[in-house]
Structures are given as structure tokens and as C-alpha cells.
């Protein structure tokens, strides 16, 4: 214990020597944060700069890019209409969300409300394993099982929008289920108790009390699933067929923004118009993810319980 007057012990003249370890910790944390922020900003800046070059340097008409489905960047008279891919990405994302939302939320209800012990012991580990399977494996399974099945059952080549949707749905199902279950689990027990104490059945409790209370969390789960779906490239590319036209039906082949980037990035020259449009597609993907993330944040801020 220091002796002497309080003014000597407490006033800040000894700050330098005393705060050495403080400073070290501060430097580590600040460096880590700075690197993360700089990396994020750099990627955003680079993507924006590259992505906009198609319009400002290569002179591609933005209207054409967004509204025409005529994609022929390497032809004699090149055209850069990306609508088919934008449509493909949105179709895959929305359709898989529509399929996965009821399945994922239903499974989450089963895990948390109907069979919590069984759900915790068996279902949860299984789902966590599914999250960890790399997307190329999903694509491979889709390619060897799903595509031939579609070909034999419905005709056509089998490579189709619906194949992409199914593969992506299976991929994002575990994400949506886990996040939905978390959101249901985080509801206060008082809510369940009070509903049961009012003579509600289990189904009434789930439908009228728990689901409404969990809605912001459930929407977040579905949107994060969509964010994963829109960014997925490899697995979709293996089963969707990769054509340059807007599909007429679910059984027609299609393409998404991500599949076009991965297919073409290898054989275009950096700085060429053909290369720049790929960056524009990348920029568009980033903007879409940002919108999804902002939506999630908005929903999270509205969460009341």
C-alpha cells in the first residue's frame, strides 16, 4: 500500500509508468480494429471503383446493363445486358427463401417447443454438421443425384433453375433453422408460462404468443439465409446450366450473377470491358448483401423481447 497523501497517490503524475500494460493492450486492439476496417473499406472502394468503370470507362449504357438480357461481351458487336443473371440470382434467392422459411421455422419449433430434449441431443448436432459441409459437396450431390432425377422425371437436360433452387435451399436450411431456433429459445419463459396458465394449448401458445414475439428474429434468420443464397456460386454453377437467357420455366437452365463471374473471370483481360462488367456484377452483389444486412439490423433494432 502506498503511503503519503492522497494527492500523491491519486493525481495523474504517475500515469506514464503505471499504464504501460494498458498501452500494450490498447495497441493490439486498435491495430486489429484498424486492419479490419481498412480491409473492409478497401474492398468496398476497389469494388465500387472497378464496378463503375464499365459505365464510365468502357462506356456501357447502365440502362442496357440492367434491362437487357442480351449478353454477348466477346462478340464482334458486344452487348452487355445482365438482366438474365440478375433475374437468376433473385429467382434462386427468393424461391429458396420461400421453400426454406416454413421448413426451417417449422424444424426450429419442433426443436425448441415440441421435442426440446431430442432436438438438442440429435437434431442440433446434425444441423451444425450440415452447416459445415462445403458448398462444392452440395453441388456435387446435386450434379450426380438431382440433375439426372430431374432429367428422367421431367425431361430436358436436368440442368435447371429448379435444380439450383433445391441445392441452395438444402444449403441454407441449416442456417435458417439454427438461427430460428436461437430466436425462439431466447424468448423469456414467462411468455410460455403465462400462455399456458391462461389455458392455451401448445399449438395456441406457439401460434399466438411465441411466433409473433419471435418474428424479428425469424425474419433475420430467413434474410441471413437469403444473403448466403445470393452469394453462393459454386454449387449453383454445377447444376443450373449457365445459359444467357431468362428461363421460361423452372425446368429451363439459367445463370446467376455469381456463376457468370466464376465462369468468365479466368479468360477476360483485366481492364477490358468484358472484365469490367464482371466487376459490376460483383458490385451489384455487394449492394444487395448490404441491403439485406441493413434490413437485418433494422429488424434487430425493432426486437422488443
Amino acid at each position, binding site marked *: 500500500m502506498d503511503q503519503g497523501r492522497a494527492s500523491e497517490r491519486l493525481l495523474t503524475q504517475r500515469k506514464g509508468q503505471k499504464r504501460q500494460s494498458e498501452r500494450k493492450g490498447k495497441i493490439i486492439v486498435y491495430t486489429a480494429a484498424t486492419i479490419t476496417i481498412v480491409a473492409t473499406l478497401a474492398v468496398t472502394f476497389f469494388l465500387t471503383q472497378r464496378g463503375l468503370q464499365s459505365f464510365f470507362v468502357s462506356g456501357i449504357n447502365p440502362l442496357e446493363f440492367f434491362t437487357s438480357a442480351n449478353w454477348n461481351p466477346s462478340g464482334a458487336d458486344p452487348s452487355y445486358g445482365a438482366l438474365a443473371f440478375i433475374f437468376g440470382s433473385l429467382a434462386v434467392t427468393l424461391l429458396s427463401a420461400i421453400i426454406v422459411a416454413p421448413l426451417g421455422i417449422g424444424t426450429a419449433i419442433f426443436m425448441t417447443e415440441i421435442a426440446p430434449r431430442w432436438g438438442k441431443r440429435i437434431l442440433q448436432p446434425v444441423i451444425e454438421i450440415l452447416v459445415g459441409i462445403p458448398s462444392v459437396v452440395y453441388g456435387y450431390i446435386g450434379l450426380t443425384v438431382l440433375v439426372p432425377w430431374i432429367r428422367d422425371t421431367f425431361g430436358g437436360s436436368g440442368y435447371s433453375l429448379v435444380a439450383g433452387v433445391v441445392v441452395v435451399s438444402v444449403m441454407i436450411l441449416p442456417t435458417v433453422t439454427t438461427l430460428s431456433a436461437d430466436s425462439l429459445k431466447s424468448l423469456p419463459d414467462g411468455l410460455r408460462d403465462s400462455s*399456458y396458465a391462461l389455458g*392455451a394449448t401448445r399449438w395456441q401458445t406457439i401460434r399466438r404468443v411465441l411466433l*409473433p*414475439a419471435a418474428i424479428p428474429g425469424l425474419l433475420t434468420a430467413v434474410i441471413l439465409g437469403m444473403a448466403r443464397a445470393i452469394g453462393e456460386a459454386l454449387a449453383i454453377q454445377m447444376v443450373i446450366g449457365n445459359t444467357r437467357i431468362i428461363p421460361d420455366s423452372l425446368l429451363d437452365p439459367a445463370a446467376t450473377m455469381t456463376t457468370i463471374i466464376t465462369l468468365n473471370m479466368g479468360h477476360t483481360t483485366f481492364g477490358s470491358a468484358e472484365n469490367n462488367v464482371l466487376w459490376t456484377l460483383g458490385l451489384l452483389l455487394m449492394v444487395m448483401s448490404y441491403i439485406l444486412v441493413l434490413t437485418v439490423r433494422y429488424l434487430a433494432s425493432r426486437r422488443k423481447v
Partner: protein
Amino acid sequence: MQAVLERELVEQQWTQEQQEVDLCLDVTDLSIFYGPKQAVKNVSMPIKRHSITALIGPSGCGKSTFLRSINRMNDGIKGFKAEGNILYDDVNLLDANIDPVALRKEIGMVFQRPNPFPNSILKNVTLPLKEHGLKSKAKREEYAETYLKQVGLWDEVKDRLHESALSLSGGQQQRLCIARTLAIQPSVLLLDEPASALDPIATAKIEELLLKLKEKYTIVLVTHNLQQAARVADDTAFFYQGEIVEFSDTKTFFQSPKEKRSEDYISGRFG
């Protein structure tokens, strides 16, 4: 001689009263187990209709467990087992054939922490009505007004019925929870420390409300607050380590307890 006669007379009156008493719930030899642990031991307690029965005792003495077994809220707990009788009208509530959903419509419960649904104030009261089959929306809202008035909340919330119930203060939320419970038209109200999370003014309002409600409902109240029991209860049961140490009318209990342990507890020497 005179004294003996007087005592006999008093005892006679007492037995007569005892026979005339209209019991709402008659608990006999109730034992409750959680796995190997016995939480409630051979408890017997007559609960009079249209009265307030207070259960007091230190934490973990089994009073909440006792309360929650009346409307079968313990059913889902692993290892839970109850023996004995809780006679309600002509049926034992511990009977395996009792439908807990139907039971809880007759025996309502209010919890320690106010737990309104994260909906609007109005919907908190109309939702149970809707789920119990009241189809007309106008009717539901009419009933909601009645029950909100009954708990003295109507004047405070009538202009903001569509705001979130979570925007209310703790005391208001608790009264809303009581209104919500009244909406299912129970005959018994079980209250598990309904005022322990509230400030003194909100507590006073709840107590006032309980005294008003006992004209229509039979109330069983678990409380940590001895003064509260003394103020509102007709009968008081003192639980200790799963047993009832003493059960008598509140006045006798607080003024001349028969048991030493009751006296110690009331005077704050343990618990």
C-alpha cells in the same frame, strides 16, 4: 366452571363454523417430489371460497411448488410427482385424467414477473378471449374494457390501447396480467408473489385490487412480504422446508401464533 362452559361454547361455535365453511379447494396429504427430493411434505390446507389465503415462508420452502401444482403448471418438469388430494368441487385435481388446458381456464395464475405478451395493451386481454372462442371483435373489446376497469387500469390506458403492453410500468403490466387472467373467467386466482417486483405504490394498488377481487374469486397468494399477508389475507399458511408449520386465520397467526417457529419467523429471527 364458568370458564369451562365458556370454552365449550366457543369450541362448539368453532366446529359449527368449520362445518359451514364453504371450501373451494381442499388439499389433503399433498406430497410433491422432484426426482428423489421431496419439495412438499404431507400438506393439508382447506381453502375457503371467496377468501384470500396467503402462503408465506422463506425461499425454497415449497410454497410456489404447492401453488403451481394446483393448476398443474409443474406437469412438464422432469421427475415431478405429486401424491395426495387437491379436491376441487367433486374432483381431485391431481387425477391423471384432468385436462390441464380446461383446468387452467378455471384456475388462473399470475406470476412474479409481469409477463404481458409483446402485443398491444388491448390485444393482451382480447387474445385469450379470442383463443377461447369469442368470435365477435366488438364483444371482445367490450369485455376487455370491463376487465381493464375491474383492475383499475382502464383510465390509465384507454387512450393508448394500441400501444405495446411493454411500454407500461411494472405495476401497470402486472394489473394488465391480472386483467388478462380475469378475461378467461376463472373461479380461482393463483398469485405467485405478484407484487415482489413492484414499488410500494404499485404494490398498494395490487393489494387494494385483491381485496376487491376476493368478492368474486377465491385467491391463493404466495408472498414474501409478511405485512402484505397481514394486510390482505383471511387465512395464512406458514411453510417451512416443505411442511406447513402453522395454518390459521391471519389475525390469530400474526397476533398469537401457536408455534415457536412461526413467532420467530414473524419477528424476523430467521428466514
